[in-house]
């Protein structure tokens, strides 16, 4: 029985400035995230398994980029594909749209911020990004993950109807408190 391990979350950081990439990478690693840092939107799409020209699901392509990304944090002002363009591409992809996206910018422009939030960005960080900003990332990742977990839970519930209640009790005790809570809430909804 698979227990949901507290594994490291993987963040894809996108910024055309080497200096800013170095900074965001360090901020993320210090906050216990696994990091991949790229210098452009098109490279980010490659990592995510999306070609720039097509928006079909990664399953269509060979398993070259099977890296799971839990969150994308991108600079707004980049040559070529801006952070906003990248956001739209991610949110427009059926396979990637649930990945939370955070936009960073050194300019505090309300219309820009609103545009990004309306475009599906979870948050907007003002640069220079601080260590304290990193705390705001985990909730967005967990929100997406719990949606994923609930779907998984429901699938597993159906499989387990054949198992005896004693065995189920033993398994419950092995599960992490979080998992148990989800299971309980699901049980309630089934009644």
């Amino acid at each position, binding site marked *: 029985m698979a227990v949901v391990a507290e594994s490291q979350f993987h963040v894809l950081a996108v910024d055309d400035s080497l200096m*800013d990439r170095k900074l965001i990478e*360090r901020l993320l690693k210090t906050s216990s995230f696994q990091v991949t840092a790229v210098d452009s939107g098109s490279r980010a799409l490659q990592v995510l398994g999306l070609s720039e020209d097509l928006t079909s699901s990664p399953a269509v392509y060979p398993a070259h980029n099977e890296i799971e990304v839990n969150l994308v944090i991108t600079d707004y002002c980049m040559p070529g594909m801006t952070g906003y363009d990248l956001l739209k591409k991610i949110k427009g992809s059926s396979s990637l749209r649930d990945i939370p996206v955070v936009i960073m910018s050194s*300019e505090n422009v309300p219309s820009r911020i609103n545009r990004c939030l309306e475009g599906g960005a979870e948050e907007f960080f003002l640069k220079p990004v601080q260590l304290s900003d990193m705390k705001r990332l985990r909730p967005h990742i967990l929100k997406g993950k719990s949606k994923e977990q609930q779907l998984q839970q429901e699938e597993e519930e159906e499989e387990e109807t054949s198992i005896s209640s004693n065995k189920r009790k033993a398994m419950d005790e092995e599960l992490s408190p979080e998992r148990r809570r989800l299971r309980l809430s699901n049980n309630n909804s089934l009644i």
Partner: protein
Amino acid sequence: MELGSLQRRYIDFTSALFREGFLDNQYTQLQQLQDESNPEFVLEVVTLFFEDSEKLLNELSRTLDQQVVDFKKVDAHVHQLKGSSASIGAQRVKNVCMAFRNCCEERNQEGCLRWLQQVRQEYFLVKSKLETLFRLEKQILAAGGSVPVLCFLWPTHVETLSV
């Protein structure tokens, strides 16, 4: 020079940098990101800042030297310089950049040239200060000591965390 006085000199020098506004809290943030696994982090980032800035300053010179000045380009460069100086806490450089951008908006070539001179001055000033800082750190480490970490809680309050 013996370790104790090197460390005192370092503390005095660093405090002055903050007090005189050359550096702000963002620099402290960088220091907090440095540890045994990344012992040269601040130096690496600041080195990138030096490289970026000098490239930008040269570009600014070139762009402002044209018969017909592309103010959008000038503004873009200054914006970049403002961003990177803010990232390392080079407060005075950042502030001059903000004023510089206003001149760009006014499309004032004369004014921009003056601001370029100012920003260049501030940049080279903070560069030499930071180089001195790194030199002192090196000397302290070579003498077998550890570099004092200064913690700034209020603008005027300086507390030494560890020596």
